[in-house]
């Protein structure tokens, strides 16, 4: 995986929201790299900043939010562009959105306009980014719908979003996102709104498409199992910090951060039977306006070290095999 070229590099990104209640540090010093063709999973509970990280990459952060620090470098044809420096309404970022980087949202009903057919909306994307005629764009849209497994794409292309079932809508949205062959697809909770059997269909589809089209993938979800199915690398976030990141097979076998350990233990596992013991993390995620001092996880942490964890923010520690963790337990001095 390290052989393929670097595609996107996020370095020390911080996105804050400014509101009457104060400054909300939604993303606070997050760094990660994605190589071409790689799949990265970003996991965490609500309010951990995983969606804002994705919005920052595409520069679609809501208007009261601002990227205050950091770089997001996109590498294209040997050149790098810092997305943070671009005008968020400018021509350049518009070419990248939907072209180089595409996004799939949780709720397909919200991503499509109600008053146009899906064909209309997909061809619009294609014609914005590629130089082609209306009928060529339509052919490509049909081809794309067929590729995502839409039954009778010649007919469904003229359907309105409300006429499609949840799974079909999800497929249509994936088709729209992939219609310009992006180098990176960001999927924000792609299967949270659909049923289990549909979720299996969508996950299988995304796996196939990623392999066939060789694109990189960022999956944002609270469901570690979805990440385990799809991703090569995992980054766990908590209150705007990247607390742990590692290759997927490493992090699920040998989690280091107490939060990751807790997350893995709080999910009942299929096949473990009626008698399995859950070991939930105590308390709940604090309000982001009242972020704890020191390590943000320390009030809930079973390994809490007084006078260390509540005072100093732990540094990012590099362990063997590309495993990074932000925890005082692993500081060696």
């Amino acid at each position, binding site marked *: 995986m390290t052989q393929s070229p670097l595609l996107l590099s996020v370095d020390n990104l911080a996105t804050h929201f400014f509101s009457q209640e104060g400054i909300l540090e939604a993303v606070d010093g997050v760094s990660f790299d994605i190589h071409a063709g790689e799949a990265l999973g970003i996991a965490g*509970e609500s309010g951990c900043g995983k969606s804002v990280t994705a919005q920052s990459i595409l520069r679609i952060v809501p208007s009261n939010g601002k990227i205050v620090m950091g770089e997001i470098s996109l590498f294209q044809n040997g050149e790098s562009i810092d997305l943070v420096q671009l005008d968020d309404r400018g021509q350049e970022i518009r070419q990248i959105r939907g072209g180089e980087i595409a996004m799939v949202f949780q709720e397909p009903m919200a991503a499509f306009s109600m008053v146009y057919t899906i064909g209309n909306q997909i061809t619009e994307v294609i014609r914005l980014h590629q130089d082609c005629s209306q009928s060529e764009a339509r052919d490509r849209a049909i081809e794309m719908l067929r590729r995502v497994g839409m039954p009778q794409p010649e007919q469904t292309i003229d359907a309105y979003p409300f006429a499609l079932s949840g799974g079909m809508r999800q497929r249509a949205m994936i088709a729209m996102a992939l219609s310009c062959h992006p180098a990176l697809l960001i999927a924000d909770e792609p299967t949270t709104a659909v049923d*289990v*059997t549909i979720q299996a269909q969508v996950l299988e589809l995304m796996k196939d498409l990623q392999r066939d089209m060789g694109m990189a993938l960022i999956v944002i979800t609270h*469901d570690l199992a979805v990440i385990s199915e799809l991703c090569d690398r995992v980054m766990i976030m908590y209150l705007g910090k990247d607390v742990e990141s590692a290759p997927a097979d490493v992090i699920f076998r040998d989690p280091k951060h107490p939060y990751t350990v807790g997350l893995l233990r*709080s*999910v009942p596992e*299929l*096949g473990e039977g009626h008698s399995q013991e859950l070991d939930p993390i105590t308390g*709940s*995620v604090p309000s982001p306006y009242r972020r704890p001092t020191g390590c943000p996880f320390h009030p809930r942490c079973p390994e809490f070290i007084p006078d260390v964890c509540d005072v100093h923010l732990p540094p990012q520690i590099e362990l063997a095999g590309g495993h990074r963790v932000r925890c005082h337990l692993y500081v060696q001095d």
Partner: protein
Amino acid sequence: MAQADAVPTRTNTPADSPPDQLPQQLEEGRGPSSADNVLEVTDLRKYFPILRGFFRRQVGEVKAVDEVSFHVARGETLALVGESGCGKTTTGRCVMRAIEPSGGSVLFRKRDGEEIEITTLTKPDLRSVQQHMGMIFQDPFSSLNPRLTVLEIIGEPFVTRKLISGRRELEEKVAELLRSVRLDPTYMRRYPHAFSGGQRQRIAIARALALDPDFVVADEPVSALDVSVQAQILSLLKELQSELHLTYLFITHNLSVVEYLSDRVSVMYVGQIVELGRTDSIFRQPRHPYTEALLSAVPVVETGKAGLRRERIILEGDVADPSNVPAGCTFHPRCPYVQDICREEEPQLVDLTGANGSQPHYVRCHFAEELELQGVRNSPQ
């Protein structure tokens, strides 16, 4: 914090037997009544009319729940599981008569042995029976009135039913209930907005348990919560069940939760029960192709344990439209094992007890006994 004796009125519980010792000879809801069943549901139906045009003529009906029969024994957890639109929530609401069923019978047995047919009760009688039932909803952000304090929310059932005389007594009761769900009683004067999602769900649970119910319907109680909080609520529900001998009808789409919490499970598809039996035996060896597909569709975290990876079955298409149910077996358009008979003849719910040991195991499939289906293997020893 945990106080096992927090609610004093629970001393008269007759059935302390663990659910696995319950009599099993009874046929689902149809056979001779067993004294240990809190609930016996027989042929429950709920059809919603489809109205069209200016005169609101009925042009069809949605069979949301179609001839559903099951029983819930005292002290056990029965899970209703299925995808959206399968009728699991409608079943739960019909059982409590929160909505009116179109037909069938729901027999409710109180702790003192009195049997009540819920479907024929008048409104005032129904209200007095409903105090023996509690309900927990999915979203604690919409199920609690934001204008009432916690004291008023949890105390409301006592006040409206005039069960309590003084304010002191009410506060003591509410404090007890808050302690039983592991919340600090000093919070009782706060409003719901001051609490996190998990705490709100605890308040909702305390309210459901306020009148010492025989039976609690929990409709997706953890689906709206964060992962780490889900685990807290699940273990709380399990602890409360053993402390207070609660009986749960647990409605969920999450199979891992079903396995963790329930003794028996009823798998629903398009308004019908397709499989019903003990959770461990169904999960180990399902007998209906839909159950098999559901189990294999659940994504799992690969922790590196060998042998956990299962062959995934990807079902084609979507859940059938309940207003236009396919002929024959409702599952046949998606079934990987479909035969000609499935397209024409509707299978009946049959008991496979003989084929599967001593526990009743109901399956609605023509080939239930022939198919070798794959379940969830326990992790390798």
